[in-house]
């Protein structure tokens, strides 16, 4: 019962963070700032939702359920490692492409000689 409550809370917080990420992706002014919203909102909300689902899986503590929990945690670690990497690779690609950067004092060129 306690586990259920904890997992409901985790999933709800995860969805709230996902709302933040989605709104950020829509609202932020340029590619780089959208990347912040996408990369971070994505990772954290995914982590919390998967943790909640994994804990919910444990409400019957059998060996098979523990293994499923382990697999879900494995996916979590997998995405936690890969997500910053793909964020980095994409933002670097964008930077070298020369996408303009939005700043307070008007636009600044990203990477154009």
């Amino acid at each position: 019962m306690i586990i259920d409550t904890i997992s409901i809370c985790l999933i709800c917080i995860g969805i709230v963070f996902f709302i933040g990420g989605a709104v950020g992706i829509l609202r932020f002014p340029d590619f780089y700032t959208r990347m912040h919203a996408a990369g971070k909102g994505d990772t954290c909300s995914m982590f919390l939702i998967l943790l909640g689902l994994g804990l919910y899986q444990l409400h019957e503590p059998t060996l098979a359920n523990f293994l499923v929990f382990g697999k879900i945690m494995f996916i979590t670690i997998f995405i936690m490692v890969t997500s910053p990497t793909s964020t980095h690779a994409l933002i670097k690609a964008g930077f070298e492409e020369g996408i303009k950067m939005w700043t307070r004092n008007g636009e600044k060129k990203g990477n154009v000689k």
Partner: protein
Amino acid sequence: MENFIAYAGVAILALMLPIMYRIIAGPTAIDRIVAVNVIGTKTAVLLIIIGMIFERVEMFVDFALTYALLNFIGSIAAARFLNRVNPTKSFTAMEAEESKE
């Protein structure tokens, strides 16, 4: 609890729709790729939720892992491809930053 998980899945699905807007309207190609990447990660989560509803989680976890993996490879490949297309940009980001100052 079953219902709650189903509602959570619907909520995630509904939140994917605004990101779809970025895929359609995103001013640059990389914007679109980023949006696709976000949706891909969420699809992995959604697959586990579907597994919970059908009570076959141990099966759907494999799908989710594969999906996350292909999503990662896809975004790395896209980044790599966009980097190579223009030969005039053979310098690195660091050098460009220096030349501007």
